[in-house]
């Protein structure tokens, strides 16, 4: 799709003169760092979805909450849209700037305010990197559980906006399960506390509503996260399979046996070969699929579960099961998985990372469906996914210079629609952002979207926070939403044959 903000379907925005806004902000927000020269703006024109680029009206880099408050008051009064950004690692264009809007970069809020080891909590500013929290907590034997693959760079504020996950979600949950309290600013510049230091707070659960709201409801200025005690023991098993369906069935077997692994990941042959070629993790390059199953907890329980899982994997038809001998080998097994995306990047000029979720039982059917779609569209797909929680990351390989971008996007759309068709979702952890704005029309009907707009309006009645993201207007759905459905060669009619 054309990703640029389209006033005809996304809603009108007011034109503002850049120089005038800069001058007014300088006046109203003392000490605020503002970037407005073209060359300074360029690094901010995209987030992790680098195919989408828009130059913002200006970039603001506040150092204090008071500056953010003043900036929002100004933007609210003058009706200037505001797009918040942390490290800009998001993969759905959620921090894609607006030509007519301020890009509010929260990266300078990078201080860990307090770690309370006794209560197992940390109070951190929104620009603190995800991994930095665990590093700071390590000396107390604690860590922060959600670990999105971008964790060395992504910020906790962005994690809250996206409800970020990672490879350990099945057991340890998403961001929403691991935060206690948020300090936010509304678009009007009002300070509000959501949640509390206790395990619950009176009234509606606005903390849950806010988490994953993609910068549409307010700006996070402080996060209190829960910290967990590091597990005593962590082991990982790698199982090879001669076909993908057996690997998928093994996943259900493990969970059906009452074992909740810390991580349960799957890669198909194309992903295995790419990763092995890049990282030399010791992956079996002839296997149709591998499963990585991590078990953590008390030493004796881990031992017991590893034995059970190994037996289950063999019974499920695994051709080879290897238990990482030591921590070094465990890290090596994971290194292949964690570098799967860049590894695929080496075997294709471009790749497009998808993020659908499905009920686990649908894994074999959906994988067969993806294979069929891949053949129909004539583009290779490498599959890497969080098998334990049914979160797929098909990587579509294409060459933008050969004019394959549109075909890749169409294939991606078809894969997501297949996910919705089997009862899943168009996004498990990357968010809707700008990327999946049209697919939202497939997942939700107009009444559901209208309710979402009502929720948004309760926080931001003027619609100034991140317009054009997350929830499509009904107008957009009428215009573009049904596009894929009529697009020929699509999965729905053939579903039964998978």
């Amino acid at each position: 799709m054309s990703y640029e903000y389209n006033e005809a379907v996304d809603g009108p925005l007011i034109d503002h003169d850049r120089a005038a806004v800069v001058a007014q902000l300088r006046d109203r927000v003392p000490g605020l760092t503002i970037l407005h020269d073209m060359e300074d703006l360029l690094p901010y024109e995209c987030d992790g979805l680098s195919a989408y680029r828009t130059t913002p009206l200006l970039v603001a880099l506040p150092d204090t909450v008071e500056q953010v408050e003043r900036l929002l008051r100004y933007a609210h009064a003058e009706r200037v849209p505001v797009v918040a950004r942390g490290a800009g690692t998001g993969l759905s264009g959620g921090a894609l700037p607006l030509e007519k809007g301020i890009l509010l970069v929260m990266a300078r809020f990078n201080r860990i305010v307090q770690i309370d080891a006794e209560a197992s909590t940390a109070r951190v500013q929104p620009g603190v990197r995800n991994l930095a929290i665990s590093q700071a907590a390590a000396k107390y034997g604690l860590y922060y559980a959600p670990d999105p693959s971008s964790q060395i760079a992504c910020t906790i504020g962005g994690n809250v906006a996206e409800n970020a996950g990672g490879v350990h979600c099945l057991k340890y949950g998403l961001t929403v399960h691991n935060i206690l309290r948020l300090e936010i600013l509304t678009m009007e510049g009002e300070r509000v506390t959501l949640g509390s230091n206790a395990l619950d707070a009176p009234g509606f659960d606005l903390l849950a509503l806010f988490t994953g709201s993609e910068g549409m409801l307010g700006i996070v200025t402080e996060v209190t996260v829960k910290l967990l005690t590091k597990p005593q023991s962590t082991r990982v098993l790698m199982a090879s399979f001669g076909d993908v369906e057996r690997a998928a069935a093994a996943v259900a077997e493990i969970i059906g046996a009452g074992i909740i692994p810390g991580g349960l990941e799957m890669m198909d042959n194309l992903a295995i070969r790419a990763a092995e070629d890049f990282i030399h993790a010791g992956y079996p390059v002839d296997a149709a699929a591998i499963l990585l199953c991590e078990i953590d907890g008390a030493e004796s329980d881990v031992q017991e579960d590893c034995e059970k899982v190994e037996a289950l994997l063999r019974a499920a038809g695994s051709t080879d099961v290897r238990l990482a001998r030591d921590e070094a080998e465990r890290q090596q097994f994971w290194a292949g998985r964690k570098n799967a995306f860049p590894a695929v990047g080496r075997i294709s000029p471009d790749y497009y990372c998808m993020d659908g979720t499905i009920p686990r039982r649908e894994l074999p059917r959906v994988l067969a469906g993806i294979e069929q779609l891949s053949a129909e569209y004539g583009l290779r797909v490498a599959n890497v996914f969080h098998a334990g929680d049914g979160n797929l990351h098909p990587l579509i390989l294409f060459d933008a210079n050969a004019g394959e971008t549109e075909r890749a996007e169409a294939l991606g759309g078809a894969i997501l629609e297949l996910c919705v068709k089997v009862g899943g979702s168009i996004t498990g952890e990357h968010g809707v952002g700008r990327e999946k704005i049209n697919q939202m029309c497939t997942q939700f009907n107009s009444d559901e979207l209208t309710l979402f707009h009502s929720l948004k309006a309760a926080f931001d009645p003027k619609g100034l926070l991140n317009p054009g993201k997350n929830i499509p207007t009904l107008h957009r759905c009428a215009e573009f939403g049904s596009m894929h459905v009529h697009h020929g060669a699509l999965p729905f009619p053939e579903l039964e044959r998978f």
Partner: protein
Amino acid sequence: MRGILIPMDDSDRLTDEVAQAIASNRPINIRGGDTKSFLARCATPEAMTLDTRSHSGIVRYDPSELVMTARAGTPMSEVSKVLDAAGQMLPCEPPEFSGSATLGGVVASGLSGPRRPWSGSVRDFMLGCRLITGRGKHLRFGGEVMKNVAGYDMSRLAAGSFGCLGVITEVSIKVLPKPRARRSIVLELAASEAMVELSRWRRTALPITGACYLDGRLHVRLEGGEGSVQSALDRIGGDALDMSFWTALRERELPFFGDPRTLWRLSLPNATPLMSLPGDAALDWGGAQRWLKTSASSTEIRWIAHGAGGHATRYGPPDTTVNPFAPLAEPLVRLHRELKKRLDPHGVFNPGRLYADV
């Protein structure tokens, strides 16, 4: 009341009744098992009652998916029986009120049991719901998948909203396998010693899933693999305790709760030290939840809870002059009213049950 015990889809009737209420601007009191009427700010005499129990039955449950989808009116006795047969459970351990609480009521009230600090709350396990909205539409949010960040998280917002934002008609909730080993012990300790032990245990990875200090005794539940539970037992010591203690605590059926004075629930930050409370207290959730039997004024109790960084909820006996729920800070009051106004523009859903104008 027709068909209470026959599982059936009665959502059309519920939707029609909501539509009528909207058309006539008449408020509705939503009820399931009517087990939590003690948690209500006020009754609305002119309201009509919408009983969800006719809309009941488990819609889908495949244990290897770790999800159960059931209609709101399904009694918890049924939910627990079916989960139990598959060796699974709702880890948040909501009170069941002899099984007559409904799944819809459990979600709408969001009350969790003794395992909550270690497992998560009712809302943590919410994956999706269906809701009859303030515009009379029957809509679906979330789903049965473990991860889903499409759109706003309406289903988690519905949890604990006490029916003020719509009628929950169906719930998809994450479930987990029951632990392989479970043991329960009791230790005779002074309160201060118990706090020291709790703090020490917090820093280790002991498989604790319940910790309650009551009447000079620290009650501990351990759940996990055989090995970890056994080694924790070896380490902690103590005398065996019947597992029924945790059910009685969850249902507030221990003798402590029989005291005729007012019962308060204080929700406090982890690791809140012992505090002097005006009355008799039971520490639950390893100290993060404290039950208080007292004759002290609500002002005093709220002041104490607030001062400790938490909040207090009044559990009874009924008193129409006191709101059971803690007052909200001013900016939150505004957001609550805005949400109510926009999601329930005719003000039909449990108006005033939580707060004025909400």
